């Protein structure tokens, strides 16, 4: 067996298993588990002896194989309702293998397509700028949310201020409320706390609305007035927009 050339080309335990099935010319629907388990474990030993990093998934599949093997060795359970024709313990694994194999083939057929910049090429030169297009000389790019978060990450990576790193959905929920409050205040000039809450008064909304008001007061963007103790709290913009 030529282990040494094969070891690093597996994309994972399923890939290794498919390779063993092909190599032994085995019917995937009728896998001789004992043989395959033995060969699979041999490969893992080989990988370990070569100090290759064994991803945990390889060991999980090894355990699965051993478990299936032991179940096949047991006599069929007597309390099986469907007349002893219990489910083949290999069925789940076979299904997973077939699914993986289908995607592996799909990946190959994708790669076989005429790929841009490998097999076909689009116009190489940057477009000539017709006179009269006011157009910044900055590079134009298309954006998605991933680019946005990546842009933010790379900026703050240079800041080494840990508090800048803390972003969580709570902060964002708070910002949603802040935006809503500012929007409504610029329309109505003055609002009470309960007017801000509106119909929807779930606990989370109350908490975030309250936190948003505190944040806005801290930022000196809104003012809060109270006529007396326990009086209604009225909110207004600190500065007219």
């Amino acid at each position, binding site marked *: 067996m030529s282990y040494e050339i094969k070891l690093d080309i597996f994309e994972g335990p399923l890939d290794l298993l498919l390779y063993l099935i092909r190599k032994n010319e085995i019917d995937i629907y009728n896998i001789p588990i004992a043989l395959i388990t033995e060969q699979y474990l041999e490969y893992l030993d080989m990988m370990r002896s070569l100090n290759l990093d064994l991803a945990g998934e390889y060991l999980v599949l090894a355990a699965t194989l051993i478990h299936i093997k032991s179940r096949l060795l047991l006599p069929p359970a007597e309390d099986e309702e469907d007349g002893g024709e219990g489910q083949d313990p290999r069925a789940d694994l*076979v299904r997973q293998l077939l699914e993986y194999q289908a995607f592996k083939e799909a990946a190959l057929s994708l790669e076989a397509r005429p790929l841009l910049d490998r097999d076909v090429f689009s116009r190489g030169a940057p477009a000539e700028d017709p006179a009269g297009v006011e157009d910044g000389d900055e590079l134009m790019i298309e954006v998605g949310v991933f680019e946005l978060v990546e842009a933010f990450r790379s900026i703050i990576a240079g800041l080494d201020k840990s508090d800048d790193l803390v972003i969580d959905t709570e902060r964002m929920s708070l910002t949603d409320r802040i935006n809503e409050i500012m929007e409504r205040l610029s329309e109505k000039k003055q609002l009470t706390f309960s007017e801000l809450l509106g119909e929807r008064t779930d606990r989370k909304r109350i908490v975030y609305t309250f936190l948003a008001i505190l944040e806005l007061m801290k930022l000196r963007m809104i003012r809060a007035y109270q006529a007396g103790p326990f009086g209604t709290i009225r909110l207004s913009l600190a500065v007219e927009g």
Partner: protein
Amino acid sequence: MEEKIAIIEAIIFASEAPLTVERMAEIMPDTEKKELIALLEKVVREYEARRGGFCLMEVAGGFQFRTRQDLAPWIRKLKAARPAMLSPAALETLAVVAYRQPIVKSEIDRIRGVDTSGALKGLLEKRLVRIVGRKDVPGKPIIYGTTRKFLEIFNLRDLAELPTLRELKDVQESSGA
């Protein structure tokens, strides 16, 4: 040569990305979409028949001039750079996303049987895969899908042009056991 064909050729040629019929219709408001499509078909056929260095092709929902596939060796000589290829892991991950989108990472991991973080990150950076949204289940996992650039790079008109995935036969049925 009909002037409209010249305009269509020019704007497709000047566009950085495949140009959709919708955009063409916006730029040429006096031309019906139906007429545009007929003219485009004519141009496609003309370049094909001419067998010059490039052809007009329909990709990623639009039209773009691209060099003929059999001339690639000459262009590779010009560029003198080996094309950046995707690793098998990246291709597998991309295939899973392409066929099963919208899909969460845990599902990709399950199908491939390995952790796909690295491959997924590479595909996001190459803009072949994008974050589509979040699934409304506990933990709000991110949902992934392919991008327009994926269609451009893989020379696909749309996702429907992907070859069909091999049918997964029912395991129980053909099980020899």
